[in-house]
């Protein structure tokens, strides 16, 4: 894991002091809300329906146990005993007091964390593959590059006031676990025919009110040119992005309007200049950063088998444990989607427990996933049963990863000031309708994603089944979409027809699932069957 140097720490500490002064001036009445709002947002502090909400950055979703314990401490000491892990691999606290916000940031700074780049029209916290450094299918660990981008982007003066927010994701495997084509810039490390590793760069993707899949802007980018090329991409966007209309200000609109080829041409032209400026770090600097991400000291000659005599444990192994590149090790995904639970929520005690498990059994590493779960990336297979027992005792061993009850849901109208409809109760009802785990497993992989408004924080555009909550004459109404994917086969879900009330959409989802079960061929997921047969049979079952 990356460790702050003296400059990182000084920057973060100074920001805490600066924000404390700003908060004091706001509370004293020296500043108006209009003056204060952009300052608090630069420190991750929003005002939501019931209180201030603090969004804390978890760079590329990676934390150690000490940091995770701090998240629990903040939940317990300053909030109401829980936190909400988000689709941006961050954590949000829903009940923050303004005068305590600087104290929280000061406590976070002691464990090398902050809330910078979690709001505003800047380059947001860099996201990545939650299995980075552990995945069996990985070409190279993407996190050193994500960290390089973090250092380059934090407080970058040229990009502090972009036309709109800007999200970058980096992966190092063929399987896309970070939705790179749905980011403003997506970067994929891959090996070319000559055996070299470089980047494929996508730009102009995103969800929100105008969802778009990012086209490839550069098929091959040498790794050493990353910063200068990304800076060139940002410069072209910063120059021509639509500042006159916030709904058309994301890079996806620019790339779509001028075309990917023209955008790429302009980036190349800019890059011809930028790459002469010495922006790209020397290899020694990158190697210094990469050194922090060296693989943990794996034990050799560990047993590579697991005792499968306990059926409940075996179920969890089969559903929530993934292959690790190191023999004798495995990757554990802890589901934060228990029956009747709130997707992504974890209590302070649960957060502490997960930190303890990472410390004791997981080489001191945790990851937050964009699907609102937690990963222990480096676990000895021989410890899996002990870990499962601990999780089971804390309500954290739900064996439903990637099943229909592993629902992504934004906070929705229960918490969010932008939302038009509630997301969480709907997620709970759908999960309740499919409470039978055998039924869920029979249905197989089905990614259901719910957003409470058009901003799409719940990634409904990328759901195999996506649900968007809207306000129809003061009533909550839900639009159903099918066919989305955030994986390497990225696609955007299409609305199937008129919307439903809350109970109606639960019924419609069940009818869709039963239609799929009747139509599927061997090995087909819901998404595969939908792509093969099209919408008609589903529409007939739901509306017919």
């Amino acid at each position, binding site marked *: 894991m990356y460790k702050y140097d003296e400059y990182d720490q000084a920057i973060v500490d100074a920001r805490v002091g600066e924000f404390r002064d700003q908060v004091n001036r*706001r*509370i004293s*009445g020296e500043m*108006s*809300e209009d003056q204060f709002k952009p300052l608090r947002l630069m420190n991750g502090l929003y*005002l*939501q*329906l*019931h*209180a*201030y909400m603090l969004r804390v950055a978890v760079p590329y979703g990676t934390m150690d146990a000490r940091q995770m314990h701090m998240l629990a401490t903040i939940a317990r000491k300053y909030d*109401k005993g829980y936190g909400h892990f988000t689709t941006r691999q961050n954590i949000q606290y829903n*009940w*923050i*007091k*303004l*005068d305590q916000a600087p104290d929280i940031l000061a406590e976070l700074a002691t464990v090398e964390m902050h809330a910078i780049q979690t709001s505003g029209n800047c380059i947001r916290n860099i996201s990545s593959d939650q299995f980075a450094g552990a995945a069996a299918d990985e070409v190279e660990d993407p996190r050193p590059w994500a960290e390089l981008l973090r250092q380059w982007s934090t407080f970058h003066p040229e990009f502090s006031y972009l036309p709109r927010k800007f999200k970058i994701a980096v992966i190092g495997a063929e399987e896309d676990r970070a939705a790179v084509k749905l980011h403003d810039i997506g970067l994929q490390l891959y090996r070319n025919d000559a055996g070299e590793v470089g980047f494929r760069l996508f730009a102009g993707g995103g969800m929100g009110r105008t969802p778009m899949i990012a086209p490839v802007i550069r098929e091959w980018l040498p790794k050493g040119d990353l910063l200068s090329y990304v800076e060139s991409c940002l410069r072209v966007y910063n120059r021509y992005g639509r500042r006159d209309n916030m709904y058309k200000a994301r890079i996806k609109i620019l790339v779509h309007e001028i075309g990917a080829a023209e955008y790429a041409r302009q980036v190349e032209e800019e890059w011809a200049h930028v790459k002469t400026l010495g922006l790209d770090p020397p290899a020694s600097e990158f190697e210094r950063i990469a050194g922090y991400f060296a693989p943990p000291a794996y034990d050799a000659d560990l047993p590579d088998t697991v005792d499968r005599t306990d059926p409940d444990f075996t179920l969890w192994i089969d559903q929530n444990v993934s292959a690790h590149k190191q023999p004798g090790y495995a990757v554990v995904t802890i589901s934060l989607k228990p029956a009747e639970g*709130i997707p992504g929520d974890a209590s302070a005690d649960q957060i502490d427990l997960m930190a303890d498990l990472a410390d004791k059994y997981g080489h001191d590493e945790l990851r937050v996933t964009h699907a609102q779960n937690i990963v222990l990336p480096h676990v000895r297979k021989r410890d899996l049963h002990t870990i499962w027992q601990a999780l089971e005792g804390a309500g954290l061993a739900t064996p439903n990863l990637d099943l229909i009850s592993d629902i992504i849901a934004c906070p929705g*109208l*229960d*918490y969010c000031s932008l*939302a038009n409809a*509630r997301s*969480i*109760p709907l997620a*709970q009802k759908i999960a309740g309708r499919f409470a039978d785990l055998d039924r869920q497993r029979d249905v197989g992989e089905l990614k259901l994603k719910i957003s409470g408004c058009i901003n799409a924080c719940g990634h409904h555009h990328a759901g195999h089944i996506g649900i968007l909550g809207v306000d129809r004459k*003061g*009533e*909550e109404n839900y639009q159903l979409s099918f066919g989305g994917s955030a994986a390497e086969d990225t696609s955007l879900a299409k609305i199937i027809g008129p919307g439903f009330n809350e109970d109606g959409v639960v019924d419609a989802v069940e009818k869709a699932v039963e239609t799929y079960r009747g139509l599927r061929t061997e090995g087909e997921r819901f998404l595969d069957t939908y792509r093969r047969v099209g919408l008609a049979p589903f529409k007939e079952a739901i509306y017919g």
Partner: protein
Amino acid sequence: MKLVTGNDLESGDVVWWTGDGWSRHVADAVDAGHAGESIAATEEAARRVNSPYVIDATATADGPRPAHIKDRIRAAGPTVRPDLGVRPADANRGEWVI
């Protein structure tokens, strides 16, 4: 009836105009009549409450009921965490919200 509501500056709590100040309980809210926008502007200038605004509500036996679900949820707290709501002892709160 018209209510004036906003969020308390320091705590962020939802607050309701009572005629001479702010309360965390919608039951204490008074009909602002035609003075709502003026009250909101004055309070905004006083910098005690963030972004006060005027909403429609109906008078019921249990007190004012905001017209829009968003304001009903603001009044009562998250429907998925009744334990954290403003009136946790009220067993009918969930019904009232919906």
